[in-house]
């Protein structure tokens, strides 16, 4: 396999540092990923050579900035195999993308008694925007249950779908458990009852292949910072015809065609949904991150990450007093667990002393924690720059945690 993890690690300056006297072991990639040098360079280069406002200037830098910004849009389009670049709307991230759909689509189309269907696996950011729109429209939120492994129960999902279902909003990959949902099948089932489908792709984009034409979803939301790009940039994919029919989300400059005090007209998509000066530098850096991943080869990355998951799961299975939370058949490289009698926050503090960064808590999925009857979990989420040696170090440190509490 043409995958050299040492070479990959050299691309990430942050991984070279020590934390609490130990070489950093960064296993919190589901919270945010680290940035390779090409991404940092893209940012610096943009601000050193190109920085200018887009879509309005006739001067050289403005045109260069516009070209680079639009090229980044095309990179995103190709990365998820969208039909057209104008189907990509840049925004702050997945949360803003979901809110955009909830407000600009949901609020304007939902009526009292209509239903929005989500799942028990959702992140708060794919729950609360829908609760808000339910309050605004009188629509009802329905929740598809999961089984003990942390997989959506497809028969229950099917039962919950009806002619009342207008929107289905499901994550592609669970941030707490790593479960990969069968989004293509779920989209097909939702379309059969006439519902529109939004896929929350925050955890998926970096770890599984995303082909929005194949999934056939109506919307796909993603965050740059979970895919090795900066925080504060992300995108919403939407089918062109649906986006065109939608009302704007926010209003201001960039999103207009003409403005008069009597009536203003809106720009065509994607600008219609990009009010105000966009985050040009971070969009370009996002493009650089996706290009970097494509160059390494997404199949190589996914294959390697799967090896890491198998390795970590095997160790976890043989670790006394450890219970894995989330054992779906189809998973990305997330290992969530609890240790008998030791609270995840204490585990997290002690691991930090060993230079190991994991996430502990409810991971913005409180209903899911309730399902598994745990107040919180420890979550080790791996990326393609992690190594088997780091996983060994994690389990070695976990033994120290248990020693401490003996």
């Amino acid at each position, binding site marked *: 396999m043409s995958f050299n993890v040492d070479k990959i690690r050299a691309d990430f300056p942050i991984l070279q540092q020590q934390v609490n006297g130990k070489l950093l072991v960064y296993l919190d990639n589901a919270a945010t990923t680290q940035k390779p040098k090409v991404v940092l360079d893209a940012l610096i280069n943009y601000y050193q050579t190109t920085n200018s406002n887009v879509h309005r200037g006739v001067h050289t830098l403005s045109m260069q900035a516009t070209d680079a910004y639009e090229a980044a849009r095309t990179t995103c389009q190709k990365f998820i195999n969208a039909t057209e670049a104008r189907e990509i709307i840049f925004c702050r991230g997945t949360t803003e993308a979901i809110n955009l759909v909830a407000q600009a689509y949901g609020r304007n189309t939902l009526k009292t008694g209509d239903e929005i269907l989500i799942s028990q696996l959702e992140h708060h950011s794919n729950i609360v925007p829908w609760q808000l729109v339910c309050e605004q429209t009188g629509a009802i939120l329905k929740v598809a249950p999961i089984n003990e492994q942390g997989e959506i129960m497809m028969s229950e999902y099917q039962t919950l779908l009806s002619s009342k279902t207008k929107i289905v909003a499901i994550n592609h990959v669970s941030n707490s458990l790593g479960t990969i949902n069968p989004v293509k099948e779920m989209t097909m089932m939702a379309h059969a009852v006439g519902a529109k489908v939004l896929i929350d792709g925050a955890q998926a984009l970096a770890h599984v292949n995303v082909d929005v034409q194949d999934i056939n979803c109506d919307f796909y939301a993603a965050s740059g910072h979970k895919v090795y790009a900066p925080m504060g940039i992300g995108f919403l994919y939407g089918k062109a015809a649906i986006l065109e029919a939608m009302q704007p989300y926010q209003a201001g400059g960039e999103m207009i065609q003409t403005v008069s005090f009597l009536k203003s007209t809106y720009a065509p998509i994607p600008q219609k949904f990009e009010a105000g000066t966009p985050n040009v530098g971070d969009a370009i850096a996002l493009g650089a991150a996706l290009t970097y991943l494509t160059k390494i080869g997404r199949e190589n990355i996914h294959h390697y990450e799967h090896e890491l998951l198998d390795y970590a799961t095997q160790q976890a299975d043989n670790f006394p007093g450890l219970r894995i939370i989330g054992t779906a058949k189809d998973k990305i490289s997330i290992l969530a667990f609890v240790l008998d009698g030791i*609270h995840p*926050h*204490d585990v997290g*503090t002690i691991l930090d*002393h060993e230079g190991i960064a994991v996430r*502990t*808590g409810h991971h913005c999925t409180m209903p899911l924690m309730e399902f598994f009857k745990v107040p919180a979990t420890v979550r080790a989420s791996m990326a393609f720059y992690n190594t088997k040696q780091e996983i060994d170090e994690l389990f070695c440190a976990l033994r*120290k945690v248990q020693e*401490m*509490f003996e």
Partner: protein
Amino acid sequence: MSQLGEQLRDPLRELYQEVIIDHARNPRNFGTVSNVTHHAEGFNPLCGDQLSLEVEIENNKIKDAKFKGTGCAISTASASLMTQFLKDKNVGEAEQIVKEFIDMLTQSPKIEHPNLGKLTVLAGVHDYPARVKCATLAWHTLDAALKREAKIASTE
């Protein structure tokens, strides 16, 4: 302590002192009070720690204090030590201790805190800003209970 435990650096042992581990594993006063006069619920929205505190006060004196809930070692030990400490204190003393304890964790751990006695085992938490709220949850809840505040005490 075992050999492996010895290998952990001192600051960690300063945080997780034997007393704290002991109270976390075997919390004292875990349960409910029969003649509750004051109670409050505590919640840390950041980590989901929950605590329910019941107190019996008679003639301005704390006769009994018990707690229930889920939390980390720091939060459980803090609640356990607090309820032990409260017995037979009068309300004014308890209010003063709340102030002094929270001050120890957020302001001045190095200053002597003679009034806090055994509670000073928790002073090390000061060096772990992410964990200070774990240690103060029980105390914010006590503060709410003494003030008979109906609302849920929150660390936020």
